[in-house]
């Protein structure tokens, strides 16, 4: 059975216009340079959790690596 809207055509049109206006009123994102835009994009990108899980499994099958030679000599800095 086809779902019937509770709104009459006028109300539906009014709602649609309202949504479009809302979309137009969204603050514009403005970036001074391409790098700024890419920085914004990178900040909104998440690494899929699957990568870490796979990495744990793959690395778990390998012997533990030795630290870099300089770290063995002088101690290391945090990664």
């Amino acid at each position: 059975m086809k779902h019937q809207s509770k709104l009459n055509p006028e109300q539906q049109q009014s709602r649609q216009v309202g949504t479009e206006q809302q979309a137009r009123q969204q603050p514009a994102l403005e970036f001074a340079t391409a790098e700024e835009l890419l920085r914004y994009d990178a900040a909104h990108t998440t690494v899929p959790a699957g990568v870490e899980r796979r990495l744990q499994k793959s690395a778990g099958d390998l012997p533990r690596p030795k630290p870099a030679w300089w770290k063995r000599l002088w101690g290391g800095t945090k990664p």
Partner: protein
Amino acid sequence: MPVNEPVAEREGSDEALGSLAPSEFADLYAAHSRAIYYLTLRFLGDPQKAEDATHDVFLKAFRKMDQFRGEASWRTWLYRIAINHCRNLQQAWHSRHLFSNADEAVWENTPATTDSPLRVLETKELGERIQAALDGLSEEYRLLLLLVADEELSYEQVGALTGQSPDAVRGKLHRARKAFAVLFKKSDPLPEHEASIKT
């Protein structure tokens, strides 16, 4: 005790020579995985390939940890592995996708924050437009912009990663910015409320 005496000689055991603690590698991953994933995502233009590439880059890093010379930062070292890895992949594919659905999975996997649904939709479109613009650039310009966008890297480090002087980086960056802006504007479906770049 002399500071520069090798740890192994000081303490005389394999444990002192030491293997990398899992927590240290986890720290490395936590600190740099987003940057590496983002580079591979936008360089390759495919979220699945970027996921595989990020895994492979960190696995290579894990295997070659003892080759890290400390002359570069960890970030630069990882970027170098990632760039070589991506180039090898591209050579193997022999063809590039000009347009892809690169951002679908990324934004679907992004946890909802305080953004409204409309905002998320806009951000998704933004990602698609960025990818389309980057795909239209030469590999050199694409890589340059992605590396310069990382605030942790200096022009000197970007130059070292791309095999050129810092001055050459600055010069090419200007042209890469302009080319990107043109391509980005071309892909703008609704100029009145979309993101924009000043030119």
